């Protein structure tokens, strides 16, 4: 009991002590707890870091391999394209070289060959010179023709003048004005006068103007105011024409009657002459002549009805006769050929000639 009492007495102290001890224990526990946490965290951190490091290393290994693999692939590809490009460039260069030479050749040969062009231009100059000469010649020819015409016109004018003034010609007794005795030689006009034929002056034309000529021209076609001379006269022109008309035989008259036969003969001769040899060539078997039938056998056989007909075939003589008439050898009568065209309108004749 004493203990109990003691205890009771010391209860407060004990309680205090207990309280104190509890406090201490609590502090120690907290301290320990924290320390353990630190220890755990450190450990765990270490573990995790180690693991992560491990994972990293693995990843790096994988990546390294993968990347190198990829890079190699890429490199191959790049190398390929590069080589291709190099090759292309090389071939392009060669192609350019070929093209260059070809183009130069082509242009020089076909498009613009300097030498041929030079030759062409030289040729052109020659041609031009020819044309110029030709033109000059043509011009000269024209001028000469014109001069000639002028000369002819002058001459005819002079002759006309001479004809009109023919009375000025000198005679044996009286010298004309162009043949004065004081001159050494007669003038040119005198010679012309002598050579021209004297012409009586035509009946003097009335002073008609060209206008009146025109009207006269028109009045030719007027209905005639005067009656025609009596009688059934043809105009003299028609009669003359009819008389001197050239003979115009018809085509039938002009050709020979036997023309076709003669022609046939001629053709035959020609053929004979052209032939290489006389035997005509024939292929295969050929019978020279057709089998000749006897006249006797040409009629169909008939059964003899009577005794006297026994040995004789009936002869059909009609078959040897032709129904056509003989060809007449009478010539055509030229007068009949003319008959249709005795009279041709005279104006037609004159206008065509």
């Amino acid at each position, binding site marked *: 009991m004493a203990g109990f009492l003691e205890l009771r007495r010391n209860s407060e102290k004990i309680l205090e002590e207990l309280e104190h001890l509890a406090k201490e224990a609590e502090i120690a526990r907290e301290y320990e707890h924290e320390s353990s946490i630190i220890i755990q965290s450190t450990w765990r951190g270490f573990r995790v870091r180690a693991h992560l490091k491990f994972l990293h290393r693995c990843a790096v290994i994988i990546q390294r391999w993968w990347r190198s693999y990829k890079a190699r692939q890429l490199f191959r590809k790049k190398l390929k394209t590069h080589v291709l490009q190099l090759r292309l460039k090389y071939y392009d260069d060669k192609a350019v070289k070929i093209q260059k030479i070809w183009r130069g050749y082509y242009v020089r040969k076909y498009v613009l060959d300097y030498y041929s*062009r030079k030759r*062409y*231009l030289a040729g*052109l*100059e020659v*041609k*031009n*010179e*020819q*044309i*110029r000469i*030709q*033109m*000059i010649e*043509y*011009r000269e020819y*024209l*001028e000469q023709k*014109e001069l000639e015409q002028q000369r002819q016109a002058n001459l005819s004018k002079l002759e006309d003048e001479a004809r009109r003034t023919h009375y000025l010609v000198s005679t044996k007794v009286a010298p004309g004005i162009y043949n004065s005795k004081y001159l050494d030689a007669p003038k040119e006009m005198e010679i012309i006068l002598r050579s021209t034929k004297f012409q009586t002056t035509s009946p003097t034309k009335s002073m008609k103007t060209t*206008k009146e000529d025109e*009207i006269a021209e*028109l*009045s030719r*076609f*007027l*209905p005639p*105011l005067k009656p025609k001379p009596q009688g059934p006269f043809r105009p003299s022109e028609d009669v003359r024409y009819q008389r001197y008309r050239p003979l115009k035989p018809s085509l039938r008259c002009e050709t020979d009657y036997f023309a076709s036969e003669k022609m046939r003969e001629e053709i035959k001769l020609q053929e004979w002459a052209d032939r290489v040899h006389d035997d005509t060539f024939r292929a295969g078997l050929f019978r020279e002549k057709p089998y000749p039938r006897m006249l006797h056998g040409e009629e169909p056989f008939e059964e003899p009805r009577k005794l006297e007909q026994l040995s004789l075939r009936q002869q059909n003589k009609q078959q040897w006769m032709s129904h056509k008439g003989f060809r007449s050898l009478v010539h055509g009568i030229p007068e009949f050929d003319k008959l249709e065209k005795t009279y041709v309108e005279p104006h037609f004749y004159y*206008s065509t000639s």
Partner: protein
Amino acid sequence: MSQRHTLQVFEQYQKARLAFVQSVADLATRPQNIETLQNAGVMALLRPLLLDVVPSVQQTAALALGRLANYSDHLAESVVRGDILPQLVYSLAEQNRFYKKAAAFVLRAVAKHSPQLAQSVIDCGALDALVVCLEEFDPSVKEAATWALGYIARHNAELSQHVVDAGGVPLLVLCLQEPEIALKRVAASALSDIAKHSPELAQTVVDAGAIAHLAQMILNPDAQLKRQVFSALSQIAKHSVDLAEMVVEAEIFPTAFACLNDTDEYVKKNCATLIREIVKHTPELAQMIVNAGGVAAVVNYVASTRGNVRLPGIMMLGYTAAHTESLAMAVIVSKGINQLSIALNEETEDHILAATAWALGQIGRHTPEHAKSVAVANVLPKLLQLYMRTDMSEDLQTKAKKALKNILQKCVYLPVLEPLLHEASPNILKHVVAQFSKVLPHDPKARRLFVTSGGLKKIQEIKAEEGSPLAEYINTINSCFPEEVVKYYSPGYADELLERVENHANKA
């Protein structure tokens, strides 16, 4: 006795009518009488006489009418208004050849003035009657009818189409084959009038076989026929390449070149026109003409003619040179430039000068070689002068400018360009300076010459706007020379030197 008296009255009346129409026809030949005749009412009096019983009165009345209508379009209109044409056309089919001739003359005289009058002639049905006249035997009737048809067709394409539709072309071609020169002449002219309007009409003429007959007549001694033949051929050839080739296929070249030297001016001109019309289509045709020696012939022609006759020759040279550089070279080789430059100096009319300038431009625009041969003929100053002249037409100025520009842009022959440097106006100067800027960087000798001849000094004097092409060219030229040289030739350099002398003194 009484019968004779009665007949005498008629005879007198007939004679009086004849005398009247004859004197009217006579009076109508002089222009001063026309107005009096018109005031006296001649139209109204002539009209009944066209229906006279006596053919000679009819004919002479028609002749008088024709002369009146020929005189002016006013009178021709009054003929149309007087309803005379239907009568004429009606009797054209009925009457004798003299009347036909006179009637065709009236129709021609009416149709010649204007398209409207020609249309009114057609409206009367004259075309068919005229075409029938072409089948007439008498050449003078044919001639008159052909003439009338030609005058109708002359105005425009529609009227020509009417003539073609009436079937006139084959008959005109037949007329060409007649022996009468006058008829041939008129037929050729009518064909030319028909062919000139459109390619289709020309094709119809060609289809009728006109070319072969025309081609046969190019060396005919008759000058007027030749004129018409060449005119017809050129009118056919002008439309298209095909037609031109058809004309060429008739083998008229090189025979036709001889006609460039004909004594007749118009034959020459029409021949040159034909060549021009053929050449202008394609390089091949031009080459054909060149190979046949045509350029030499044309150059001779240009040398031997003056004024308007020269024009087609000049244009032919221009067209030929415009096609390709080798053709232009052929023109140069044929001494075309000399003649063109002579023409440029001789001629005074605007349009000829314009054509010459154009032709020169066409020759010089191909290569430096071409430009040099043009420039050496000393045409550039003349062209410049034409361009600068203000009294000339605008067309000439533009043509001269274009020619100058074309030649200058190719010209690298500096001695010719130098004088232009001093004379040219700014817009031409630009091209001149551009040529210098192209040549000088590559040619040391030229640089030296450029300095000694004063070109560089002139360049420094040019006032160019900053940034303009001219300024760029000047810079390029300046960069070819040492800086001191450029400075030395700059305009204010002497003053600058003096200033420097003063400053130097101050410092001291």
